[in-house]
């Protein structure tokens, strides 16, 4: 039954490099970038979406902060957050207070949920000298209302970023930035397409770390890396296993431990789609490179079919539609809903998504995790049973 999937050493090395980047909580490579680019800013951003193009245009490096994974010991973080709040803010605060984020000149806290919103306040109380911005993404998607408001925010942000990095706003190359990120997102879309088609060539345990490395790398470098992986993966020797094809949802903000992804694969699942790290993949189309670049970014938020619990869906019919379309297009046989414990947005959204799946006759299963979940056994049992039931009874 078990076929060994031995990655060619080139892929192994590439993935190992990603894992190293992720595991380095002191952000060594960011520090190195900073040292190599004196005067330019490094700006952190939290889930789930921030227009990184602004930072890039101001000559800076945007760095995604999605928590700290399972290795960081939490002391001060738990002192700031009660037990019934998800894990992400505690590890972010722990990173901050222990000096591991000193290489960042500022932080952007998007309007993802109350926790991240309030974290922005904690941040300004804790680091009064650092640049901190709350990014109020509009929930009114009319260009004349939400659009105008959002454009104002983006303009202000770009101005401040330029000021921080000593760049004349007139020289900020926003269009160039859009181009660079479009290229990156294209590569990631190709990666996801490959995985959906032939998950044995691009297993999710690799895809996940490969994408995640994009939080920390300059975008051009990451694009090259993804393209390289694509070339290697397409050429690799691998044959399919008798696994169940599943789509994963709920993990858009606090990220699951890599071990969880591996556990799913070991339990007989091919993850053919997921909602990991939306900040790196949204919007799932090219941002307009020709017109006014700020307007293009505004439109990117207003007009794309983004589906995440933090974004208002305008009508009942819209709910879950993106998911159902994805399940169909990736030929997933079921959906695993894995959400962080105590994540109100994900967990309040869940009954609605599951309802939509039921109506579409798509099977699903759910469980919760935390970024430092150590006990994989219950998860393995649930995922394994789900895979068993798809495999043993799939056709019938």
């Amino acid at each position, binding site marked *: 039954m078990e076929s060994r999937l031995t990655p060619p050493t080139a892929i192994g090395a590439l993935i190992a490099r990603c894992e190293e980047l992720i595991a380095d909580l002191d952000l060594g490579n960011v520090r190195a970038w900073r040292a190599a680019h004196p005067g330019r800013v490094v700006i952190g951003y939290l889930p789930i979406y921030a227009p990184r193009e602004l930072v890039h245009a101001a000559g800076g490096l945007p760095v995604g902060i999605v928590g700290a994974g399972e290795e960081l010991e939490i002391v001060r973080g738990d002192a700031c957050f009660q037990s019934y709040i998800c894990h992400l803010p505690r590890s972010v605060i722990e990173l901050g207070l222990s000096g591991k984020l000193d290489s960042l000149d500022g932080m952007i806290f998007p309007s993802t*949920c109350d926790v991240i919103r309030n974290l922005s306040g904690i941040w300004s109380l804790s680091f009064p000298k650092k640049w901190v911005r*709350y990014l109020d993404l509009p*929930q009114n998607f009319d260009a*004349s209302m939400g659009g105008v408001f959002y454009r104002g925010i983006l303009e202000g942000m770009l101005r401040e970023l330029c000021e921080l990095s000593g760049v004349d706003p007139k020289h900020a190359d926003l269009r160039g930035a859009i181009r660079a990120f479009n290229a990156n997102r294209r590569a990631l879309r190709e990666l996801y397409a490959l995985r959906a088609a032939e998950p044995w060539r691009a297993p999710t345990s690799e895809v996940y770390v490969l994408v995640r490395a994009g939080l920390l790398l300059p975008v051009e470098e990451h694009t090259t890396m993804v393209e390289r992986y694509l070339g290697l993966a397409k050429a690799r020797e691998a044959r399919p296993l008798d696994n169940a094809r599943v789509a994963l949802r709920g993990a858009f903000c606090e990220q699951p431990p890599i071990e969880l992804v591996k556990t799913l694969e070991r339990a007989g699942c091919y993850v053919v789609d997921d909602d990991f790290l939306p900040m790196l993949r949204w919007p799932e189309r090219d941002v307009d490179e020709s017109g006014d670049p700020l307007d293009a970014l505004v439109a990117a938020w207003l007009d794309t079919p983004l589906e995440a619990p933090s974004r208002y869906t305008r009508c009942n019919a819209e*709910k879950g539609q993106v998911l159902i379309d994805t399940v169909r297009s990736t030929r997933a046989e079921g959906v695993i809903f894995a959400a962080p414990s*105590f994540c*109100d947005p994900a*967990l309040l959204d869940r009954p609605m998504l599951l309802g939509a799946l039921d109506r579409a006759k798509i099977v699903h299963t759910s469980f919760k995790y935390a970024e430092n979940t150590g006990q994989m056994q219950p998860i393995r049992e649930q995922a394994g049973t789900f895979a068993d039931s798809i495999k043993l009874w799939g056709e019938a």
Partner: protein
Amino acid sequence: MTNSVVKEPSMLLQKDMISGHYSKLARAEETGNTVAYTFVPGNLTELMLAFDMLPVHPEINALQNGMRKLSGEYIAEAERAGHSEDVCTYVKCDIGMSLKGNVGPTGEKMPPPNLLLLSYTGCFTFMKWFELLRERYDCATTMLHVPYQAEGHITKDARDYVVKQLREVTIPALEKASGKRYDEDRLKEFLARSAKAEDDLVWVLESAKHTPSPIDAYFGGVYYIGPLFTAFRGTEAAVEYYRALRKEVQSRIENGEGPLTPEGQMRDQRFRLVVEGPPNWTHFREFWKMFYDEGAVVVASSYTKVGGLYDRGFRHDPDRPLESLAEYCLGCYTNLNLPSRVDLLVDYVNDYHADGFLVNSVKSCDSFSSGQLVMLREIEKRTGLPGAFIETDLVDPRYFSAANVKNRLESYFQMLSQKRATANAS
């Protein structure tokens, strides 16, 4: 006499207002009134009244159900229907009630909404809540996005954004749902009455600066804010209620009396506290008793500001109808950023001569709770006073551990008196 509970006359008045409202709702279909479901923070009551719409506040139903010990079963019902244990229990209590036939806390049936009016202030859960309600009722929904006061003040851009939405989205939606035309002059009349009642509420809340305090600004305070934060703002009834309340408090001040508790006049005021966070509703009396038994009176609280920071000067303004509504939405307590919340509480501690402050952290509410531990430390630092921290929930009876809360409060009060004793000795 063992079970009789002492109530202030104003409380009885309020009780009538509320039950009157619920029976109006029950008869909404007969009387042809349209019904809008909406939320307390940043509510647009005057605007709804201007369209003769009756508001239903799901949070108020939830808290009333909590006080009437019905919430446990409703929450269980929602969890049975697939809701997670982890999420806000107001939502689950409401969904559970609706699943169980939508019978309101007074035993009368609630009408389904003609419109879901989502004026979204200070909490993301509201948005999910309305999506869930929309799925249940499949009715017209309108969303007013109110930005957060991230910079610690209301920006012009934010206000313009809200006003524009009010004009181009909300008002048309209300017109459509009610079948009535927007009449700005009517709105202005309501706003003028609001401002009158608001003056009296502020007077009452600030009466706690007296020693002894004539009110409890938390356990009593939640009653005092009732009419103004819900369906009655802008009505003549509210104006009268606050006039009566003010008189009542005035007479207590003159007689040097303390607040009325369910067990009668509170005599001995040993500790003056400022409280942050909503109360627990399922064990409200038991909770309150833990305070007055120890001679603790609350002189200021943030919870009484979730429906507007009137004591900081804001008034609804008939001369700037939509602008002042927008500022109202933007200005509610939960829409303040954390540093502003800290500033406000520090001011309360100082202005009201408090001996200490307490955070009641509720499991349900990320909007309130996340960051409270940091606030606690910051306030301790700035005021030099010790703070206390307890954890309960709004309406989930499983999360109220009386022994635990009592243990902490007792320890805290013993600590305050020990501190005072040594301060006096030296």
